[in-house]
């Protein structure tokens, strides 16, 4: 097992900062050996995960902190997004039916389509949530 810590980014839950996340994920994916098509897809998934934290966990409170960690475990690329908002209702997190054309409900679908494994949960100390997304790099 060859675990490699690619990076850890702390940033405020401000939509302005999403461009930082995208730039970083794109480069990190490149370092991990992803081609640019895959890197673009990973950017989409992680961007949506952070958007969801901003919109649904922090509900627009820009002072909340988000932590994005990227690890490379023998070609399993792990993206962990952590927040310190109130614990969310994990049952509510699901995509809309795509046949029902309406605004919204796409983010979680994008994430599921792009990633190979997703795990969401509450942090241990009663405050905060995490989403771990794994992509197997061939």
């Amino acid at each position, binding site marked *: 097992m060859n675990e490699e810590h690619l990076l850890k980014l702390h940033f405020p839950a401000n*939509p*302005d900062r*999403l*461009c930082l996340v*995208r730039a970083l994920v794109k480069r990190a994916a490149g370092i991990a050996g992803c081609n640019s098509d895959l890197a*673009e897809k990973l*950017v*989409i998934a992680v*961007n*949506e995960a952070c*958007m969801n934290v*901003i*919109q649904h966990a922090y509900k627009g409170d820009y002072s909340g902190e988000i932590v994005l960690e990227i690890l490379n475990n023998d070609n399993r690329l792990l993206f962990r997004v952590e927040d310190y908002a109130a614990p969310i209702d994990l049952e509510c997190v699901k995509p809309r039916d*795509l046949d029902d*054309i*309406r*605004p*919204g409900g*796409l*983010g979680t*679908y*994008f994430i599921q*389509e*792009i990633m190979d494994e997703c795990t969401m949960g509450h942090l241990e100390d009663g405050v905060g949530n995490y989403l771990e997304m794994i992509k197997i790099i061939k």
Partner: protein
Amino acid sequence: MKINTREEGGYAIIELIGEVDLSCSPAARKQILACLKANRSLLVDLKAVTYIDSSGVASLVEGYQTAKKLNLKFGLIGVSDSAMSVLRLARLDKVFPIHANVKERLREDG
């Protein structure tokens, strides 16, 4: 993101330029809905979109549905590769009327 607006072939054209993400999709949404509410048929030009997230796509879906309700024409033109790959992921590439440019759209309008 920047927004340019123009008129062409009886359509209002809203051109979105750059990254359409949560930091600016509300502005895009506002412009799209304002245009439709002014009773104008609308094409959204995505040729210079380098990134669009689900909130940007949601604004387009809202435009599409509002246009339908108001009996106005709506569509996308010049969709960039990066925008198209997101529309495909959302399976909306077969839902929106999409054309290369205004001329192509007008040809189809007949």
